[in-house]
């Protein structure tokens, strides 16, 4: 074990941390919007909407993320229609291709989590809200959504960890985030274990913080479960 090498690799790996965090944060943000829309359409009962959203979740949950990233980064750039469109300035950049792929992927998984959570909202609460004269929108905003979000948090925490790990795949399309830098340094120094350990600890720390944040959100949202002082 070469401790000095481990210590020296830290600044370079830490320098890649912001990019990893940026990839994760942007993908999760876009993914959440996508998941929300997808779950609503899926529950809308409209046959076209249900078919489209089912196909979306089926395809993105049934194929490896690597295929999705390559399809977007290498595949879309071949289509003239996209090259000529206003989307090209965005899709010609690996950063946005990675974020698009990650967001589409997490959107598919999260929409299923959200749909499951919405379906477990107790029917009695919905009926009570209706009896109070709430409109559909208000019922959704005040009763269904808060209860569902609270319900989905543990599962969503797992999804966040999966996204932190998935962001490493951006290194396959030239993005130098933590895994990309780690790979390059392994090739330069052949110090496989040292660099793996440092990079691995960085990821474990990110995941630890993310888990704590989700736990804290869960704690905040379930005051009724806490013992009264």
């Amino acid at each position, binding site marked *: 074990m070469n401790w000095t090498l481990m210590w020296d690799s830290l600044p370079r790996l830490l320098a890649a941390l912001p990019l990893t965090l940026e990839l994760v944060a942007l993908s999760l943000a876009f993914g959440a919007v996508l998941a929300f829309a997808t779950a609503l359409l899926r529950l809308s009962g409209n046959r076209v909407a249900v078919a489209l959203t089912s196909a979306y979740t*089926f*395809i993105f949950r*049934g*194929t*490896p*993320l*690597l*295929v*999705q990233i*390559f*399809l977007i980064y*290498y*595949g*879309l*750039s*071949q*289509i003239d229609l996209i090259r000529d469109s206003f989307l090209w300035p965005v899709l010609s950049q690996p950063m946005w291709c990675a974020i698009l792929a990650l967001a589409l992927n997490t959107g598919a998984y999260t929409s299923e989590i959200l749909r499951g959570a919405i379906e477990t909202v107790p029917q009695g609460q919905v009926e009570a809200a209706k009896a109070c004269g709430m409109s559909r929108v208000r019922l959704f905003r005040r009763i269904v959504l808060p209860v569902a979000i609270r319900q989905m948090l543990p599962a969503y925490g797992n999804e966040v*960890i999966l996204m*932190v*790990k*998935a*962001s*490493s*795949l951006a*290194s*396959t399309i030239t993005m130098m985030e933590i*895994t990309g830098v*780690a*790979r390059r340094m*392994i*090739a330069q120094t*052949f110090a*496989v*274990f040292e660099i*793996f350990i440092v*990079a*691995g600890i960085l*990821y*474990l720390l990110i*995941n*630890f913080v993310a888990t704590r944040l989700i736990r804290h959100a869960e704690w905040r949202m379930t005051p009724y479960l806490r013992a009264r002082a």
Partner: protein
Amino acid sequence: MLDLLTSGLHGWGPQLLSGTAMTVAVALSSFLLGLAFGAAGAAAKLSDSLVLRGLAEIYTTAVRGVPELLVIYLLFFGGSGMIMAVAGIFGYGGLIELNAFSIGVAAVGLISGAYSTEVIRGAVKSVPYGQIEAARACGMGRWRILRRVLVPQTLRFALPGLGNVWQLTLKDTALISVTALAEIMRVAHTAAGSTRQSFLFYSVAALLYLALTTVSTTAFQQAERYASRGVRRA
């Protein structure tokens, strides 16, 4: 359909088919290896030994918290070195090189095993303790209880979770294309490079994976139905 695959796709059909076979072979081997790791990990986590519990905890936390790609790089660049270090202890000083297949299976198996550990541990814990007491009261020995009471029921409880682990494992095999093993993703990448038809070949790869995941979902549903045939439905 088959004709299109063999003659169409710019002549890459046969390679894609053998790539699919390779993906299935890697996924099956990794999954089985993962089951072995998972059973050992679950046994360690449920044991009385603090050391074993600690080691199993480190294994599952580290492997589930670190990107799969990083684990694959570790074994790809460091695997031979590790084996050679172990062989060195036993007095063998020669060069040992692992092929891409065994490195891939070892890496994906390691990852799969960490998830299997949690699934199997949960399943063992859901076997009612009264049944084990009853078996003991009947005079069954430890191994007989394991074989007749614990394992059959654990399998049934673990099936849905193991189905998820299988899907993860199957999709993780795409990552070992970075080690140049000729599975679906690698063949698609090579074909896309030589024909400049990236969209076509990655779409075909996506379809092949979709077919594999769909078939295995159905298979696991059948297995679950078979395993719970003796259970009353509410």
